């Protein structure tokens, strides 16, 4: 089962920021990492990763740099201080959103999710 298009839209940037929190990565590495960590749940048209990355760069949430690694020039993306702040804020927002959303969808099960959710704030 894959997430709907609406749910994916906008969350792609957030997921990319979350991945880049660990270390700088290049585009293909981000796709692989996303696929592995989500066990294939998050899959996207791979080309569309780049508009998202360039958007984040324009917003100064990530910075990009060409590096020569193993004889190949790759464009590495690293999260910035603003990116970390945005990630933290958006994570808290998503946690609240999920808790309330699930609470309405499934009043009894929602409580379980809320308990299981990490205390982000």
């Amino acid at each position, binding site marked *: 089962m894959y997430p709907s298009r609406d749910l994916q839209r906008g969350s792609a940037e957030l997921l990319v920021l979350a991945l880049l929190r660990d270390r700088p990565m290049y585009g*293909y590495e981000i796709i692989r990492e996303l696929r592995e960590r989500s066990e294939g749940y998050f899959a996207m048209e791979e*080309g*569309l990763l780049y508009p998202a990355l360039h958007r*984040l760069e324009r917003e100064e*949430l990530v910075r990009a740099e060409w590096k020569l690694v193993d004889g190949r*020039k790759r*464009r590495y993306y690293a999260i910035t201080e603003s990116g970390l702040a945005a*990630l933290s804020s958006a994570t808290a927002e998503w946690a609240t959103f999920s808790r309330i959303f699930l609470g309405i969808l499934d009043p009894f099960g929602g409580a379980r999710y809320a308990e299981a959710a990490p205390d982000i704030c």
Partner: protein
Amino acid sequence: MPKLHQTSVESYLLAIRRQLKGLDPAEQRGILRELENHLEDMIRYLRESGLSKEASTERAVAEMGDPIKVGRQLREEHLAKGSPWRYSLLAALPLLIPALGLEVLWIASPLFVNVRATTWLSLLVMLVAFGPILGLCFWACRRRRWVWLAPSAGIILDHIIKQVWVFLAGPWRASGLPELISPWLPTTISAGPDLAQDSWLLLGDWLILALLSPLLLALFLRWGRLPASLVLLGWVGNLVVFQWFEGPLSPYKLLVLLFPFVGLASVAALPCAKRNVTAWAILLGDWLLVALGQWYFLLYEAPHHMNALWRQSHPPTFSTVWGLMPHAALAFSLALLLGVQLLSRLGISCHLKISVR
């Protein structure tokens, strides 16, 4: 006959490239290189997992998604970002607009006759001093670094037109006009009538300008804090030259000395202003200095310092036009810059349906 995997990847990249029209060539190359890298990585991975070269290529290209959609989104992103080419054009406008406007007015003006022409030497000095700038332009063309070209072209065009006009007619130099419009004019052009003095001043000023220009242009790419130091450097350089050849300083002379470099620094600061508060502060400060200096000159110094030709033949309304034109050009450029920024902001709000901020 090209191999299948080559044609597929190339076709995909070509389809993307078609969507990137209008972006800076360097930007286009960077985008395509990045996508090509991605495709190569994916093909390699798929081949390692047992697929044939053709099947790997086909699948990799398919996984990338619709190239038109990807290309369009990339183009939108880069247009919203504002390419260095556009900023450099905006930065060149304050040079080009007053240069062209003033030259038209000069040529059309019947005021400037019966004054001696300048010498071959000044033209020669100008050409020598333009060497570094022309070299930079050549390098920019060869390496396709267009961002370095526009401001150089602006500076060159501005000064070539003025120098040619000085060489051909020369009368305005005795009128005080060059000083009045001097935000974009080296001060030496407005020097005194003595030939030897002119030559030395021209040499000094053009060399300073030649030294400063590449540094100012370098600022287009990275360094946001240089304008202030460059203004200082240019000002000190001119101060020395002027002090040496022209005697004691006056407030008016100090302002005249300041004009060309605050003008150039303003131009240089424009592209940096997008994300740099310091650059904005310098830009606005420069503009204020230029404006204040001009008005000070117009209202107080001009009546005292203009020579007979100026006083007799130059009506006040005309001088107002001279004085205002560079500021209007700068204001126009700023308005354009702000417009681009505004559009960019609107673009952001359109793109991020769920903001990550």
